[in-house]
C-alpha cells in the first residue's frame, strides 16, 4: 500500500508544499462514496417534494391535532390583503414577518400566488400534492434502504466506530478544532476532526433517524401498527413539526458542508468522495501521524 501511495504522489497539489511531502491516501471506501451520493440525490428530491407537501397545508402545530378552534400553531405561512395589495407573511410563535415574494406569497407564472414555499423550491413547480407525495415516498424508500445498508455495512467494516463515534481524544481536541475552523485553518488527515465527527454523527445518528421516524409517524397505518410511536414523538402534529425542523437542520448542514468543502480545498475533498483518494498533510504535523493502512 505504501508503494501505491508513493506512486500516487504526483504533481497534483494545491498547497504550498511540494507534492512529495503530502501523501495521497485511500480515505473513503467504495461503500461510503456510493451511499454518500445516493443520499445526495435522494435528499435533493426529498427536500423539494417535501416542500411541495408542506405547501398543501403550510402550518405546523404542537400536539396530536391541528388547532382550528384553538391555537397550538408554531409556524404558518400565507398571505393577506392590505390596502397596498396582498402581503406574504411567515408567522413564527405568533410573531409575523413580511416574507412577500418568497414565503407565503410568490410568483407563479408571473402571478402573485398564495403558497408556502415558492415554485422554484418545489417539485413539481406548480401546486400538485399527489405528485409531490409520489416523488417523496419513492426517494424516502431510497433513503431508508440506503441508510439501513450503510448502517449494517458501517458496523461490519468498522467505519462507524473507527471514523464517526467521537472518542475521548476528540472531546479534548474539540476546543482547538473549533478555533481552527473559525480561522478557516483546516487539517488534512485521514481521520475526521472532532467537529466533523459531531456533524456527520449528528446527521447520521440523530437527524436522519428522527426524520425517518417522524415521517413514518405521519402514516396513519404505521401509527396503528406501532402504538406509542406518535406518543413518544409528542403526537402526530408534533412529529410533523419535528420532521420540518430536521429538514431545516439538513439544509443547514448541506450549506456548511459545501462551504467547508470549498474552504478546505474542493479538488482534494471531491476527489476523496468520488475516487476515495485524499491528499493529507505531511506526517510531521502535530495533528497526529496519518494512518496509512487502508
Amino acid at each position: 500500500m505504501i508503494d501505491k501511495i508513493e506512486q500516487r504522489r504526483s504533481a497534483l497539489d494545491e498547497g504550498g508544499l511540494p507534492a512529495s511531502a503530502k501523501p495521497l491516501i485511500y480515505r473513503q471506501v467504495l461503500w461510503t462514496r456510493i451511499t454518500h451520493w445516493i443520499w445526495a440525490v435522494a435528499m435533493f428530491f426529498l427536500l423539494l417534494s417535501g416542500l411541495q407537501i408542506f405547501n398543501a397545508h403550510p402550518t405546523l402545530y404542537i400536539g396530536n391535532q391541528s388547532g382550528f378552534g384553538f391555537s397550538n400553531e408554531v409556524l404558518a405561512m400565507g398571505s393577506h390583503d392590505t390596502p397596498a395589495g396582498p402581503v406574504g407573511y411567515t408567522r413564527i410563535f405568533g410573531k409575523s414577518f413580511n416574507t412577500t415574494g418568497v414565503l407565503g406569497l410568490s410568483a407563479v407564472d408571473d402571478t402573485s400566488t398564495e403558497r408556502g414555499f415558492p415554485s422554484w423550491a418545489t417539485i413539481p413547480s406548480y401546486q400538485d400534492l399527489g405528485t409531490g407525495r409520489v416523488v417523496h415516498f419513492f426517494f424516502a424508500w431510497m433513503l431508508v434502504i440506503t441508510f439501513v445498508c450503510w448502517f449494517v455495512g458501517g458496523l461490519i467494516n468498522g467505519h462507524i466506530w473507527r471514523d464517526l463515534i467521537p472518542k475521548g481524544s476528540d472531546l479534548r481536541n474539540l476546543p482547538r478544532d473549533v478555533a481552527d475552523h473559525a480561522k478557516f485553518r483546516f487539517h488534512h488527515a485521514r481521520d475526521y476532526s472532532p467537529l466533523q465527527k459531531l456533524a456527520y454523527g449528528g446527521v447520521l445518528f440523530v437527524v436522519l433517524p428522527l426524520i425517518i421516524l417522524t415521517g413514518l409517524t405521519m402514516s396513519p397505518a404505521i401509527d396503528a401498527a406501532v402504538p406509542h410511536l406518535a406518543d413518544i414523538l409528542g403526537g402526530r402534529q408534533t412529529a410533523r413539526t419535528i420532521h420540518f425542523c430536521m429538514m431545516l437542520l439538513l439544509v443547514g448542514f448541506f450549506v456548511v458542508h459545501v462551504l467547508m468543502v470549498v474552504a478546505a480545498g474542493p479538488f482534494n475533498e471531491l476527489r476523496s468522495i468520488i475516487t476515495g483518494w485524499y491528499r493529507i498533510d505531511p506526517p510531521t504535523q502535530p495533528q497526529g501521524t496519518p494512518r496509512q493502512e487502508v
Partner: protein
Amino acid sequence: MSKFKLSRRSFLTGAAIGSSGLLLASCNVLDGLDRDSGVRNVLESANNLTYRIQRTLADRNALAEEFSEQDIRQPQRPNGSTDPDDEDYKQLASDNFAKWKLEVGGLVETPLSLSLAQLQAMPSRTQVTRHDCVEGWSCIAKWTGVPLSVVLDEAKPKPAARYVVFYCMDTIDQDDGTKYYGSIDLIDARHPQTILAYGMNGKPLPIENGAPLRVRVERQLGYKMPKYLGKIELVDTFAQIGMGHGGYWEDNGYEWYGGI
C-alpha cells in the same frame, strides 16, 4: 496545514455545487411527471411497495389510537364537498333522510337496501379517533356507526370480491359532474374500527361532515373515507370504475393506498 485561501477555482467549484440543485429545480425540468408517464409509474411503484410491506409486516387488525372525550377540542374540520348542491341529495336532506337508503350490491349473495333507522338498529361502535388529512392536518372527533363488517356479513360477499367501492351522492367535480367515489380492500373493510358513521361528537352526522352516512377508515387518510354514501358495491377489480384508479382523488393523482 494550509491556510484557507479562496482561489478562483475553489469559488467556482463551490458555486457550481451549490447552485446546480437550485437551477435544476427552477428550470421546471422536473415537472414532467404527469399521470401514466413512464417515470411516474416507476416512482409510484414505491407506494405499492409500501402497501405490500405494511400489509405483510403490520398486524392487519392493529387498532388506530383512540382518544378520550377531553381530546375533542373543536368541531370536525370538513373538507371536500361540505354542502352538496345535487337535487336528489337536497330532497333527501329536506326530510332528514327518511327516504334515503343505502344500497349494498355487486359481488354479494344478498343485496341489501338499508334505511337509516335500520342501520341505527344494528350493532354500533363509538370511537374517538384522529382524522388525518392528506394535506397534513389532523382533527380529533367522536364517531358512532355500524361496523362495515356487520353489513358485509349480512350481504355475504362472494369469494371473488376483493374491494369495497363507495359511491357518494355529492358532485365533487362541478365541471364534468363526477360524483365522489372511493374504494378500500377487504382487510380495511373488515377492520373493527371501519364503521359506517351516522353520528359525530354525540349528535347526528352534520351535512358538512357527510350526512346521512360516511365511512371511517381509521388507518387511512381522510380522502379514503367518502361522505354522503349512497351505494356500496363489492367488486373484484375497480379497473372499469371511473378512470380506473379506484377513487375520485386516485383518478386525480393520489395513491390508492391512503395508509401512508
